[in-house]
């Protein structure tokens, strides 16, 4: 543990922000992703353009919005237009560098499920469905997934693939007809960072969160996670990063639980 106390979600957001480069176009969803992209803008990537599915291009975010339809997300945008303009004329056209997605289940090929748990027609639980997640997963050059690491969430096979990862193998996307057939995918959890093993199209461990062991990760994952010989540890947050989150981006602490790491 470092000298500075921080919450798990704070470090997840800080790690995510480092995957965003200056000048890129980032497709943001609600919650932690919008904190991550705002943090990136306030640190190393001031010229990032945020796009939001409802039709917002390039807002100048001050406080983190609470929903993709929150009026705050329209703040001083370059364009307030339509969903088609964003999902078709920016995303499907191939202009989005980084897209954030999530789901109730994620499997070994990084497929995501936000539709049903159980049988599709007689589910145990019904969720809202795709929204913009499927098109983001289909068309963004790089995908970022920020999610809690729980055994019931990291499943061998999703009950329903809402947003495609590598589907069923390294050429799964190509076979399905997706143009962006080999995107980089990064999964950031409270235990570790994962990415895609290009040979198998499966998730592999990339980095551990500070003070987390490989065993802990394996215990909390239902599928067989690929473990490379050498695994780095995520950097501890800096005071600057934490201050930006706490004082500028989310002063009300809306996005962060009270649990400290």
């Amino acid at each position, binding site marked *: 543990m470092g000298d500075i106390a921080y919450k798990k979600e704070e470090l997840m957001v800080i790690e995510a922000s480092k995957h965003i480069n200056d000048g890129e176009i980032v497709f943001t969803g609600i919650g932690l992703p919008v904190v991550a992209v705002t943090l990136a803008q306030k640190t190393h990537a001031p010229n990032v353009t945020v796009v939001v599915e409802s039709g917002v291009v390039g807002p100048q975010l001050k406080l983190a919005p609470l929903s993709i339809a*929150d009026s705050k997300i329209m703040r001083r945008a370059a364009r307030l237009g339509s969903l088609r303009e964003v999902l078709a004329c920016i995303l*499907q056209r191939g202009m989005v560098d980084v897209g954030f997605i999530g789901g109730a289940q994620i499997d070994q090929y990084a497929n995501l499920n936000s539709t049903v748990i159980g049988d*599709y027609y007689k589910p145990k639980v019904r969720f809202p469905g795709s929204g*913009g997640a499927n*098109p983001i997963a289909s068309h963004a050059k790089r995908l970022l997934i920020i999610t809690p690491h729980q055994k019931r969430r990291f499943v061998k096979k999703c009950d*329903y693939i*809402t947003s*495609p990862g590598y589907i069923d193998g390294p050429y799964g996307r190509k076979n399905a007809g997706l143009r962006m057939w080999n995107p980089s995918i990064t999964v950031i959890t409270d235990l570790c960072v994962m990415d895609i093993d290009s040979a198998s199209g499966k998730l592999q461990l990339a980095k551990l969160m500070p003070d987390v062991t490989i065993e802990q990760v394996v215990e909390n994952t239902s599928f067989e996670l690929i473990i490379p010989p050498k695994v780095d540890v995520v950097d501890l947050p800096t005071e600057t990063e934490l201050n930006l989150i706490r004082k500028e981006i989310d002063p009300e602490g809306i996005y962060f639980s009270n649990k400290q790491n």
Partner: protein
Amino acid sequence: MNSKIMTASEAVERFIFDGASVGFSGQNVVGAPMAITHEIIRQKKKNLTLLGCNLSLPADILIGAGLVRKCEWGTCNIGYRGIPSMGYSARKYYQEGKLEIEDYEHLGMVSRFLAGEMGLPFMPVMSSLGSDILKYKAPSTEKKFEIIENPWNPGEKVLLMPAATPDVAIVHVQRADEMGDAIMEGFTATIPELVRASKKVIVSCEEIISSEETRNYPEMTTIPYIYVDAVVEQPWGSHPTATYRYYDCDVEHLRMYQECAEAALKEGKSGMQKYQDYLQEYVLSCDTFNDYLEKIGGVKKLMELKQRMREVI
């Protein structure tokens, strides 16, 4: 030209019918046409098919009122600060086998409206591929999609999605004139395509303005009158969702709604009574949407929401 101004009650009576397919404006907690939605519940128009990208609250309350047969949506997401995203009535009815859902994703769904508004039978789409959105058809659908080879790049797959042309579109906007020229502020989401794809259109608005005013700067008119059949003036007409630049969403009321819907899902008979009580108190016992606005807190609450929007933008 003849004025299209009428009350919510007249508009629903004239243009919504049992079994109609109805498209809705609204994204999560912004821009849902709640005044017209309440009126549909009061008039008990049933066996409806609802269409939209994010159907959110209007779908959930119509489902909870037992009026919906089927939804074709990208999502039904009401999520906001501490409020669960899934509409609980939708969850309840689907899980209990009382609701048919055709799942799409937002790009596929807006592409269907795009085909509809342009008089085309289908639209090519490059998402949905490889997902279970294509695997699971809704029981009623003969052909949810078609995959063809790109004639200009043999070997490349292209998904075709069929046009969607709802019987009626219901949208809430900031301003409209009596002929139906409507001005939207903020993002327009799927409104332009949805409206132009639909056979009839009901526009509810915060304010009616004169045609003199709309025609001064026609670049700003989002929907020209040729698509519009009814204009309903209802200030705070999208409450408890927000209307951009006018008022913020009412988080407290939204939470209360979702609590009632959650109770109906989880607490059996007493929970279902709780939801029925909500409908009775806030919809069925109200003659008009103004009565509802009194009940949710009246002038004081409305001014507070107005003020909150000012702080947000």
